[in-house]
């Protein structure tokens, strides 16, 4: 255990400096994309957009195309032009890094290989770099141990910290997001928000994490096993049942979901609007605004998919143009008509009972999480609810969550629900800001030397806060 033979040069540098290396690389290793980049030496004074420019979002997957070519990570965006029937192999399963064979390949390609890694993301010498790696809460100890061993023994980072992703959000500029007065000493070291309830609705699941002064309150962490993947698959299933067979088109349906889906704030009302029965009678179409068309991408013409208002006469037009032989563009395009699918799909995050799941929706889950915490903390957490993760970008999500929380929470409490500008990279941003606070980082991270002396089980205990 911990018997990695250090490089001669590595040994020399360790003997000189047993403290953490000054450069810090932050990886938020999500199931869908990983967010990675170097942390700055000091926090820029602006709202974080400058900092975010150093963060890259890389698909965390091996992608296989129709003609059996395999692409790694970011090649999905640069090399793949035919999005039909893409298959994915994702090393992160249910939010936890499981398959290190694939993960190593993607990391090597993105960060270590000098030919393929972007220049600003390349980790030239791991032993002179501190790695901050996120994990989902409530990870299995064996998976944590695997991660520690791979990071320290395969790449041999000079410093290493494995931490729960949602808790990093507390290191961001939370006060301005909630409209609170700013901290007294803006020039001092970065400090975490005092109380923050982080809702992380990602690709594999949705978690609620109460974060107190940058550290998670473990007993309050709750998880709903529904995330963006389930929404995409559910939409895919509905569309395949009702219109075209799209079961192999995960990538395309994910784009469709991102383009058309929204969280309804008036579910029965919108259900009525989208009903086909109402469409026939009324002269002014009541479904206008709810029902939309999505034009599927055409790889031959190089056209990406897009959404447009529903055109009820589309089929008629198509038939006409077949007769007249004009407007071939209209003929070649394939259109999905999306009505109630647009809001019944994200609805399962709030009412998992709609697909027969016996778990509570997000607002209920928040209250379940709070119910195991002292009541004195409830007002502070309810006033600081932060939503991150890709699903936070669904239109209407924030309003719906705030409304339902307001209805169920105690009257004495103020309920404030906020979403950062970029909910996907917010945890990374928090991690990068946290890394500028060297004192705090030194307290929780481990060095390569410590790992070699004490081994991986010690590292696991250290990261769980037992030491």
């Amino acid at each position, binding site marked *: 255990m911990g018997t990695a033979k250090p490089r001669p040069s590595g040994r020399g540098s360790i003997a000189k400096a047993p403290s953490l290396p000054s450069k810090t690389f932050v990886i938020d290793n999500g199931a869908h994309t990983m967010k990675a980049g170097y942390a700055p030496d000091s926090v820029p004074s602006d709202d974080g957009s400058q900092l975010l420019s150093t963060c890259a979002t890389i698909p965390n997957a091996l992608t296989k195309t129709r003609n059996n070519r*395999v692409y790694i990570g970011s090649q999905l965006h640069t090399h793949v032009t035919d999005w039909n029937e893409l298959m994915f*192999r994702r090393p992160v399963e249910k939010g936890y890094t499981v398959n290190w064979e694939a993960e190593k390949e993607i990391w090597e390609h993105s960060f270590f290989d000098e030919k393929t890694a972007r220049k600003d993301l390349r980790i030239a010498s791991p032993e002179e770099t501190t790695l901050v790696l996120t994990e989902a809460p409530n990870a299995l100890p064996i998976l944590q141990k695997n991660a520690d061993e791979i990071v320290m023994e395969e790449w041999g980072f000079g410093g290493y910290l494995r931490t729960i992703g949602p808790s990093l959000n507390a290191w961001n500029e939370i006060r301005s997001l909630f409209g609170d007065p700013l901290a007294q000493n803006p020039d001092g070291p970065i400090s975490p928000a005092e109380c923050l309830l982080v809702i992380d609705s990602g690709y594999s699941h949705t978690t609620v994490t109460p974060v107190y002064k940058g550290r998670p309150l473990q*007993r309050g962490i*709750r998880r709903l096993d529904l995330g963006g993947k389930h929404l995409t*698959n559910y939409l895919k299933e509905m569309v395949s049942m009702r219109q075209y067979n799209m079961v192999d088109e*995960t990538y395309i349906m994910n784009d469709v979901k991102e383009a058309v889906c929204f969280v309804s704030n008036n579910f029965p009302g919108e259900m009525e609007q989208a009903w086909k029965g109402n469409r026939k009678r009324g002269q002014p179409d009541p479904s206008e605004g709810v029902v939309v068309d999505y034009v599927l991408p055409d790889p031959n013409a190089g056209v990406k998919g897009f959404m447009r208002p529903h055109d009820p006469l589309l089929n008629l037009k198509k038939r006409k143009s077949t007769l007249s032989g004009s407007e071939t563009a209209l003929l070649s395009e394939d259109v999905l008509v999306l009505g109630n699918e647009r809001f019944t799909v994200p609805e399962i995050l709030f009412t998992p009972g709609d*697909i027969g799941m016996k778990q*509570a929706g997000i607002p209920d889950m928040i209250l*379940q999480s709070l119910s195991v915490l002292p009541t004195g903390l409830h007002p502070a957490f309810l006033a600081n609810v932060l939503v991150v993760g890709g699903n936070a970008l669904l239109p209407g999500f924030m309003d719906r969550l705030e409304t339902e929380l307001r209805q169920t929470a105690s009257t004495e409490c103020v309920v404030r629900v906020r979403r950062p500008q970029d909910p996907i990279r917010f945890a990374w941003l928090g991690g990068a800001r946290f890394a500028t606070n060297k004192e705090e980082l030194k307290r929780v991270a481990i060095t390569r030397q410590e790992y070699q002396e004490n081994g991986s089980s010690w590292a696991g205990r250290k990261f769980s806060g037992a030491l």
Partner: protein
Amino acid sequence: MYSIEILPNSSTHATPGWTYVPDRRDRGFDPAKAAITPAVGRKRGIRDPGRADLSSRQNNAIVRHLAELDRENHKDVSIPIPVKQQKDSGGRGTRGKVTSNVRRILQSQKTFRNHLDDEEAAQAQAAQTATQRPAPAQLSRLAKPPSSRRSSTPAAASKPEPASSRQKKHTPSVTPSAAAPAASTTTSTDGDGDGDKPDADASPNPTKLITSEHDNDPLLRSYIPSAPSDRIMQALLSEPPLSYHAARAGPPLTNKSPRRFCCMCGYWGKIRCKNCHQRTCGLECYKVHEDSRCGAFF
């Protein structure tokens, strides 16, 4: 009074798929309720089977559907790591040789499911040894084997044992801060109820409100609990994480009956197919359903 209920479970056992569970209703025996509930339950079961417990067949369908939604690709595919040229692998020469740990992890083809099962097995074993060891000391008077369920012992004697062992397995960390809720129910006399944070140092404003005799009326007081002390917070922060299963969100708090949707168009499922119990919104969708999809395919 015992009723038989089929418990859906994911683990494999040698036992048959059902088990005896004690009927909840006889715990606090209420003759009035006992007279009514069975009748109501039966009738409701006829009218609206959705309100009662789902049948195991429906449960299986739901479990299958959820597994379907959880898939990465629709088909099972194996995507191999792209093969590299030899000179690329020479690049790792600078990094020292692969340790045995790394080799083992890289070669492992375990899925999350496998790891989770391992974890559960380890936990179950740990719980078993933990309960067996104190057993001779505590229960020497009872001297019952753990399989005392079917024996004629009074319920009170055998009840606590399975309950406690189950609790130990699911929530291993509910020990500290029993004092937490008690301490936090202390009330602050601060009147206005819109304080964002329950600051402990909410000093009473000298130029505040006109005092009246009703100020101390317990009915009119606004109860905002004060923040817990630093000691409690430290205890909470140092708790170990819950297990993967314990962190899963529980069933919803409100017991609303589930919504049903048309399996064809997604509108409200107003009518139920008498063959396959799927819902459709009206005759138009029902005809399509009957013609194409109704039957044993689902």
